[in-house]
């Protein structure tokens, strides 16, 4: 069963602020693609709106923690942390460089990052453990939010954790799936498809909802919801577009890892609105 969650109406001003952050962050990600290292561009752009909405929730300072489990979208995370005011320095010029913590997959040396992710699957139990800790401390309103990729759901550890989270009645655990349809070697649908995904989460004992992963108003409404009395974890299947915001690569599996020159970066950034 897929449910419709009731949430307080969003504040238009907040959504406008978050939308502007998303624009800035996408431009930073393109800058990182123009670094000598290149970056996982497609997945960083697909997940950005989710991260910005989730970090907005965490900024309420209620003990909520956001874990980017699809750690290869590190460029997206660094950009989102910077535009959200959590990471003071601009990570784009420092991305991938010696002496700076902005590695291709994020680690705890980066301000705002608690857990190392990139080996897929691990961020989901990190966030579930965080949620469990908050619950045991009598703070069930503090969320552990894991942001995973749809390809990442091929990892058994994700489902192992879902089983545990439901059994432990972790109503403050939220798993957001960035369903952009792509993975390293092609399309999820071609390699190891995930039919009936919402039904799977529901069968595991989750509250489940599907959402436009680029609708910041809807994401904000959903992620600011009070879940302190919830008994079931929440799965949010967010439909996204790989490479979102850069028309040249939108929806293309080849955008998974991209290296561009500065001229192309400048052109792409002008097109981001």
């Amino acid at each position, binding site marked *: 069963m897929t449910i419709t969650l009731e949430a307080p109406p969003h504040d238009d001003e907040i959504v406008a602020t978050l939308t502007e952050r998303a624009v800035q962050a996408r431009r930073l990600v393109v800058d990182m693609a123009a670094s000598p290292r*290149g970056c996982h561009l497609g997945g960083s752009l697909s997940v950005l709106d989710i991260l910005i909405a989730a970090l907005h929730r965490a900024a309420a300072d209620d003990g909520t*923690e956001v874990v980017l489990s699809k750690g290869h979208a590190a460029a997206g995370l660094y950009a989102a942390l910077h535009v959200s005011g959590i990471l003071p320095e601009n990570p784009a010029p420092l991305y991938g460089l010696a002496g700076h913590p902005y590695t*291709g997959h994020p*680690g*705890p040396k980066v301000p705002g990052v*608690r*857990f*190392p992710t990139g*080996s897929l*699957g*691990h961020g*989901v*139990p*990190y*966030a*579930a*453990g*965080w*949620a*469990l*800790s*908050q619950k*045991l*401390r009598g703070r069930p309103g503090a969320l*552990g939010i894991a942001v995973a990729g749809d390809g990442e759901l091929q990892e058994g*550890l994700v489902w*192992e*954790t879902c*089983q*545990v989270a439901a*059994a*432990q009645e972790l109503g403050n655990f939220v798993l957001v799936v960035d369903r952009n349809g792509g993975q*390293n*070697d092609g399309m999820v649908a071609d390699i190891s498809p995930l039919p009936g995904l919402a039904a799977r989460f529901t069968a595991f004992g989750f509250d489940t909802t599907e959402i436009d992963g680029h609708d910041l108003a809807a994401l904000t409404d959903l992620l600011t919801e009070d879940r302190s009395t919830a008994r079931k974890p929440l799965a949010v299947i967010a439909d996204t577009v790989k490479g979102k915001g850069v028309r*040249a*690569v939108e929806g*293309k599996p*080849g*955008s*998974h*890892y*991209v*290296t*561009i020159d500065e001229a*192309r970066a400048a052109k792409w950034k002008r097109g981001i609105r």
Partner: protein
Amino acid sequence: MTTTDDRAVTTPDTTLSGRDAYRDELPKDVAGGRPEAGTGTHPVAPAGERPEAPAGERRAPVAGTVPATDERRTATTATAPLPDERPVTLSGRDAYRDELTRLAASDDTIVCLEADLGGKGHPFQAAHPERFLNLGIAEGAMVDMAAGLAAGGHKPFVSTFAPFAALRAAESLKLTLGYLAAGVTVVAPYAGVSGAWFGTTHHCLEDLAILRSVPGVTIAAPYGDAEMRAVVREAARSGRPHYIRTGRNATYESLAPLGDELPLVNWEFRAGDREGREGWDAVCLVSVGEEGTRLALAARRAAPGTAHAHLVYLDHEHLTGAAAELARHHSRFVVVEEHRGQGGVAEALALLLPACEVRSVSADRSWPSQGGDHEEVMAALGLDLPAVLDALDAFARTTS
């Protein structure tokens, strides 16, 4: 624009990257099979791997005699060693459970996690049910969730059988205990072949090799009730990541000292001194873990006068200090450990002590495929009292 994944771009006439060379070679590699493993050199001499000495070269043990339970020693005149009649206490895992339950009474940040192998009637569950979490058969999730719990301010103690902790959840241990340095303690019963007749899936002779290669993890293999309790207290107090290996249900009488201060090297007896040189070249047994220590103690009864040093902490930092202490008194060591020779403590000591001679009595490279009790399965791997005495003999031969 270059739109690729992160693999190196190559052309047919350039040198291939490692993984592209693999792809290029894959069909014939598969057809040709893989090279045989374990053909390299080895700095120490695991007892189970040493070639049989010609019958004429076999000698009696350096001191005392042993029962002729092993065909390798049939040439030896053997009598039984004195039985160990000291009283027993709780098994390692029961001592852990009991001590943790006690500690949690005054520390509400301690949580006890199990992956469905804590057994019914776990004392922590009875005393602190709200902080006892059986997460089900989910070892990887359990270790990772412990990282989340530690980040939230808790002190998670997680326990599952050693093969499932150190091998199935190895990557989680690397990230949680190593990279994150999270204050998580992993307690791993069923280490070695204490699972005995349960079979190879329930054995773990590789955990020290794995955990010792992860920087920052405190590794302990306590012997007896008192050492286990002291190690658990230290893990809770320090907040440092710990891996504690123990056995199944066997009990061992605690060694002195019994307090919180565990010595880096616990000398049962030492014969030598580097400064005075007297006795420095006498052989010293170094015991590791429950069964390694049991065998060393038995060898001491069979060969009175043999030096014996017992080690509790086995990570690189502790072992470096212990090695220096060992070398102050002796120069020749027989390390007894219920682990593969490869990646074990003997190998580590051999590297730390290049001027000393180190021999290993450890599990050989076979896979136990038959039943039997713990001692019988160990013997099938070449890990028994005759093997220890053979190793002492080997040193005696080199000085005679």
